[in-house]
């Protein structure tokens, strides 16, 4: 096949690079959501640990 003219070839080249960068961005977004979940869980665990450390208050007579 003869080489495609620039205007027609451009959309294929753009398509290939857009697919690549979209998947990279998608992957980074998934990683960001995982890190946010880890951060939330870590906060929960810190709260749990601090609650356990506090001495139970004696009931007032």
């Amino acid at each position, binding site marked *: *096949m003869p*080489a*495609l*003219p*620039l205007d027609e*070839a*451009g959309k*294929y*080249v753009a*398509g*290939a*690079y857009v*697919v*690549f960068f979209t*998947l*990279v961005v998608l*992957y980074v977004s998934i*990683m960001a959501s*995982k*890190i946010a979940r*880890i951060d939330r*869980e*870590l906060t929960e*665990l810190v709260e*749990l*640990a601090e609650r*356990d450390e506090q001495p139970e208050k004696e009931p007032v007579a």
Partner: protein
Amino acid sequence: MYSKGLKPLSIATVVAMAAWLAMVFFYAPLDADQGFVQKIFYVHVPLAIVALCGFVAGGIFGVLHLRKRDRTHDFRSYVAIHMSIIFGTVVLITGSIWARASWGHWWVWDEPVLVSFLVVFLLYCVYYPLRFSIEDPDRQARYSSVFAIAAGAFVPINFAAVRMAEKFTHPRVLSQTGGSMPGEMRLTFLVGIVAVTLLFITLWKFELTSKNASVQLKRLRRRLEATA
């Protein structure tokens, strides 16, 4: 544990990718035969090479796991294969786009390069159901390592088969005689391989760090809930 050196690695990846893109569009000359469409080559081929190397790396980590009985190697093997499947998906999509632009078809079944890569890709798609159908962690790691080694050994055979195939529709870019690319194209291609390799290693380390943090958190939660 896995996050060591992640910051400089990420910076190096961004710099290498920026240099690679600049070279693709402003430095590498237009191909005399294919014209502007040949620019797809600079993203498609480095991704394919790095994905195949990732599959082989998964096999090497599988060997290390079976030899040393260290679960971290199985973990590394799993993440390397996982990353290679993601990269492989991009290879198949960009390959189809290039095929459509160059040959007028989205897929050509008599092209050995495309079909052999698809065979390798489909082979590795079996890895997930195999791994996650086994509940016992030791057996899961052992069976996954055996699969990673067997499939990893198949990848160089696939590469050799493509080289020995009669039709060479794709240009030979890595050969002892230097291939058929002029200097600027070759340099751009090599920078592309470096950039994509750095991207693979960075994402691999990110994934390892994230998965390791999740595992450590679960252990910590179990311990805290047991003492509560």
